[in-house]
């Protein structure tokens, strides 16, 4: 497995989740453990570009895959564009859900780019736009208990290059 560009040894115990591998074995504590049962999205990471929940993922299943976490998003020591947009638009308060929100948003952007429909897409065979309604539906797997959702939506819209 490769994590943020670096080769990583898989755990011997198959019970270790990808989340625990990141946090406890590799010291990458940016990815957060919220509910640990797939309900909150705080543990979202990108695997080969697709967003998944690392709490429900057994690390052994991901041998040979490339994992990207919040720690891997900086470019030349500077925040990536989605991180920057969250700061600019107050897309958080306490910050606990933020790494998951940002990884999820990056995965969501690629889904929209390739034309994947969502529950709120009226025409399944038409084109997809990053409207606020689309982003709200597509980000519903990431909860924010501070209630910063309006800032989160604004940040994602700005980062995805869509209008207000």
């Amino acid at each position, binding site marked *: 497995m490769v994590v943020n560009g670096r080769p990583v040894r898989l755990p011997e115990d198959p019970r270790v989740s990808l989340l625990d591998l990141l946090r406890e074995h590799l010291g990458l504590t940016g990815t957060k453990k919220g509910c640990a049962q797939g309900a909150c999205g705080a543990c979202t990471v990108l695997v080969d570009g*697709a967003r998944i929940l690392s709490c429900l*993922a*057994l690390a052994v299943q991901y041998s040979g895959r490339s994992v990207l976490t919040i720690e891997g998003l900086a470019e030349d020591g500077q925040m990536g564009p989605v991180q920057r947009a969250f700061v600019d638009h107050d897309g958080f308060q306490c910050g606990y859900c933020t790494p998951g929100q940002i990884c999820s948003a990056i995965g969501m952007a690629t889904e929209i780019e390739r034309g994947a*429909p969502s529950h709120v*897409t009226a025409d*399944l065979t038409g084109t997809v736009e990053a409207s606020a309604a689309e982003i709200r539906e597509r980000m519903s*797997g990431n909860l924010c208990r501070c209630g910063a959702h309006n800032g989160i939506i604004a940040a994602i819209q700005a980062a995805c290059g869509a209008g207000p």
Partner: protein
Amino acid sequence: MRRFDYARAEDVADAVRYGTRRDALYLGGGTNLVDLMRETVAQPAALVDVTRLASTIEGTETGGLRIGAAARNSLVAEHPAVRQRYPALARAILAGASAQIRNMATVGGNLLQRTRCAYFYDVEGSRCNRRSPGQGCDAIEGLNRGHAVLGTSSSCIATHPSDMCVALAALDAVVHLAHEDGERSLPLTALHRVPGDRPDIETVLRPGELVTGVELPRLPLAARSTYRKVRDRASYAFALVSVAAAVEVEAGIVQDVRLALGGVGTTPWRARHAEETLRGQAVGEPAFRRAAQAELAAAVPRAHNGFKVELAVRTVIGVLNELTREEA
């Protein structure tokens, strides 16, 4: 979580050889099974990872579509042929779970996911015949607002949670299975068992039998099909009631129809009584209501889920109105 052995299957023969081991379970995306293992509801001695088996989606010789069991739910919902020819299936998948979970969950795993009944999950505090046969059921006299009204028994009223399966039930899907002894196929509607007095036996699968794929037959009326889900919040929640429907109308008369219900049954509920009632009838709310009521006539509501009966009737009417709007 109890310790277990892990093996990754490279092909079907490999998988079913491991899978016949005692207390072995097949592992897809893990979105349900890993959680069940943490809660000790499931305690397999071995997991056979089948996520690297066939995940392709391709046309069949008879004009249908075959979906490999390892296909991720998101891949199925995105596939152009699914969106164009079986929109109810795309809509059902997109109505379920979250984007992250749909990226992980496989088709095979979705078919075999377990109920979300809270008493089933509560190993230390609740009685459950599905988890511990003969123990009793705390849902029947308990908080059963989310529970089933069709296909229930005095042993179990747990709802089947899948959205995808409801669309597959409506669309005449066939499930392909493999076992050390050979292969077989079943209609999806024959895969799941109503609980009866053995709610712990959830499907007709034999020990070690593996779901290898799902096949959608050629079904022209499915091009006009949809899925509607009614739930407590607008996204990322299980269904209170859901309806998958496809309908073919000519000169204002229902020629053919497929109808299945979610959130109300102990299995993905193909509504054959409603279909029979509807065929040959003039399009319109009176016929739609009669059909829906014919299906729900067998409903056994409990203290907190009685609302589902009328909600299901109204949702069927709403969906059929939507699909036949141009014909009325």
